[in-house]
């Protein structure tokens, strides 16, 4: 079996059986690629993962792209990416055809089920707000950033409520902060923050080893 076909089949298996997107997929991808097929050594997998994470878009697709590319170049990355996308594409397409918005609204049983599901979906989105806030090390000094971002987007004011603005500002702001405070240790608040960031990164390096 050619490696192209293997890449496609492996990633379509991953795409078909992983619920919840990127982060849930990583451990399964790692098991398939590093442990089972032994296509890529562990440390290189972590390097590729870092590249996939630093790019925009859907993490699961990005991971398949870097691994496909590493093994078989551009063609390999296309095979792997199509493998990741195809199962969920077919499944959602079938749902879109049979479970139309009208069905959800007009079928009495389906509509009652969805009435119960909707508030649960909101809860599923509130929970990661708290977990990511903890992971990002948000404290009472930095909490103003996510609060302001959330309220400005929620405000629905034309232009101001566009999330793209805050993604771009966050990236540029972080870069400027890093350039001015990141390279040289300073006493006080900024130096402390830098130390924290470095500790986290050192921790990651240890995991690589």
């Amino acid at each position, binding site marked *: 079996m050619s490696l192209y076909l293997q890449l496609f089949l492996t990633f379509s298996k991953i795409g078909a*059986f992983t*619920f919840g*997107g*990127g982060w849930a997929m990583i451990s399964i991808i790692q098991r398939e690629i590093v442990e089972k097929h032994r296509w890529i050594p562990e440390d290189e997998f972590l*390097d*590729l993962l870092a590249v*996939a994470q*630093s*790019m*925009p*878009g*859907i993490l*699961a*697709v*990005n991971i398949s*792209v870097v691994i496909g590319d590493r093994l078989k170049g551009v063609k390999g990355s296309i095979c792997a990416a199509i493998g990741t*996308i195809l199962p*969920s*594409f077919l499944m*959602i*397409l079938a*749902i879109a*055809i049979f*479970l139309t*918005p009208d069905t959800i609204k007009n079928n009495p049983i389906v509509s*009652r*089920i*969805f009435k*119960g*599901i*909707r*508030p*649960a*979906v*909101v*809860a*599923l*989105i*509130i*929970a990661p*707000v708290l977990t*990511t806030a903890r*992971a990002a090390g*948000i404290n009472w000094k930095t909490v103003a*950033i*996510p609060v302001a*971002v959330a309220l400005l*987007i*929620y405000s*629905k004011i034309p232009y101001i409520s566009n*999330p*793209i603005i*805050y*993604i*771009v500002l966050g990236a*540029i702001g*972080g870069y400027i*902060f*890093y350039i001015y405070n*990141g390279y040289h240790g300073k006493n006080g608040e900024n130096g402390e923050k830098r130390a924290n960031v470095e500790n986290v990164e050192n921790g990651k390096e240890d995991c690589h080893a």
Partner: protein
Amino acid sequence: MLEDYLKLIWAYLKIGLFGFGGGYAMLSLIQREVVDSGWITSQMFTDIVAISQMTPGPIGINSATYIGYVVTGSVLGSLVTTLTVVLPPFILTLIAAHYIERHRQSPFIKGAFMGLRPVVVGLIASAALLLMNSENFGYEMSERIITIAICVASFCIVYFTRVHPILVIILAGITGLLVF
């Protein structure tokens, strides 16, 4: 017809290019493009998120597939929208993979991600805020008491236990069937 396709492509190019921080962080971006443009209601958007949670695959792709079909009414529209959301990151990731050594040292990437972390928290919070409306929680007081109770209970289960989110959605669906 062609206009629908161009609008879908433009919307999902933006979603693909600026989708940082994972599925939940992309929700407010997707919502802005597809709900505010009048393609679907906020209620339908919530339903798509629920469907996406219960089926394999990332929400970014699932929403593209579903909305592409709903807006154009054709499989082709669904396919075009799905490919559009993965194409820009596909190209960028491929380029980045070839410059992996330089890339890892890049102070821009390091700094940018430090700055993005608190923003991502705000993005997810805004998605939750935007969905807290009458379309999802009901217009009448009696209905709202039940939906708010479902929301609080679901939150506690997801946040404090290790129960899988899919099970929470199924339980909420059964509750809805029994109560409403």
